[in-house]
């Protein structure tokens, strides 16, 4: 088992991930699956520079990441897998990157998005992505940092289809 935490976070690698989650789950490798990040060298360089050098960082597109896990190169690592959005998480799962649990961290507010919690805002499409993942057997929970209480995402939905 090489994935110790799978998380959706708009901000990808930032303080909550490095300072709270990494020591909590003893991760030694951070994998970022994000097409835009992988395609922009400057963004990628910035993100890599924010991680201590003793940690391994892998930044790649969704396809690359799926291939990376399939190649079993990371099997000896304790990897923290980060997605930037619900659709990315679903795409990777469909391509064969199987994870059992999914943590919702930060999903920014925006046009047409309902508020699930202080840090999680999701639109209809996002909810459908999560629903499909859940049908496939992924346990989805919301938890910003380890010190917060873990809550099932279902309990956070205000009323289906309505505005939060």
């Amino acid at each position, binding site marked *: 088992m090489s994935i110790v935490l799978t998380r959706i976070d708009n901000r990808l690698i930032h303080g909550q991930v490095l*300072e709270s989650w990494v*020591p909590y789950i003893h991760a030694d490798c951070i994998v970022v699956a994000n097409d835009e990040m992988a395609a922009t060298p400057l963004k990628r360089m910035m993100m890599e520079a924010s991680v201590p050098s003793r940690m391994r960082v892998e930044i790649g597109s969704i396809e690359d990441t799926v291939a990376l896990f399939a190649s079993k190169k990371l099997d000896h690592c304790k990897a923290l897998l980060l997605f930037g959005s619900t659709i990315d998480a679903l795409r990777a799962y469909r391509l064969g990157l199987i994870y059992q649990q999914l943590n919702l961290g930060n999903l920014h507010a925006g046009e047409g998005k309902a508020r699930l919690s202080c840090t999680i805002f999701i639109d209809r499409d996002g909810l459908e992505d999560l629903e499909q993942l859940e049908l496939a057997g992924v346990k989805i929970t919301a938890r910003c940092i380890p010190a917060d209480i873990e809550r099932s995402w279902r309990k956070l939905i205000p009323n289906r289809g309505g505005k939060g």
Partner: protein
Amino acid sequence: MIAVDLLFGALVSLLCGLDRTALLQVMISRPLVAAPLVAWLLGEPLVGLQVGVMVELLWLARLPVGAAIPPDDTQVSIAGTVLAISLGKALHADSLELLLLCLLVAIPLGKVGQFFDHAARQYNVRLLNRAETALANGNLFAVEFQHLRGILSFSLAAIGTYSFIVVSGLLLIPLCWSLVQHPLEHSSSWLQLALPLVGVAVILGTINVSRALTLFCATFGTAFLLMWLV
């Protein structure tokens, strides 16, 4: 007299509370600074130092990262100090036991601080929306004003937390003081030692350093042997 003490406390609570998030971040919000400051104003600076040592480390490992809000150790230490000093005069009990009781009442109420802080940040969404409308109307002065209004939300959160802890303390502590005074006498100095050590243990458990415990044990052992032998 108590009223004057509480008022001074409120002043420090406001000043240090704003440093937590809204302004500056020069760390006058740390218990090690806030508690001695208020204690000095009330004329007993050493009480503040004791509170600082006991509370400083407890939540030091809870970082204010992104949208995660730690318990309000600033208000816990300020309110705890004010309670200990003012009740010490009222109950004629200027003792370590009373100080510990005040802290043990104040510490769980740090949770209230999270609630108030949360409410302030939620309320500020409204200010953001108003600023957005003002900008669309070309009223830049109103945009700046809405931002500064946010500081008022954080002020209210700080004062709210402080008042809640102080009022709860004033109601609870005189009631249970006579009951707790005697049992605490046997363990007060050990409790005073234990609080900072619990803080250190939590830091060790959650800090992002590999082999933190080993490193700690090694330095603890070395320092201890040095003091013992010298």
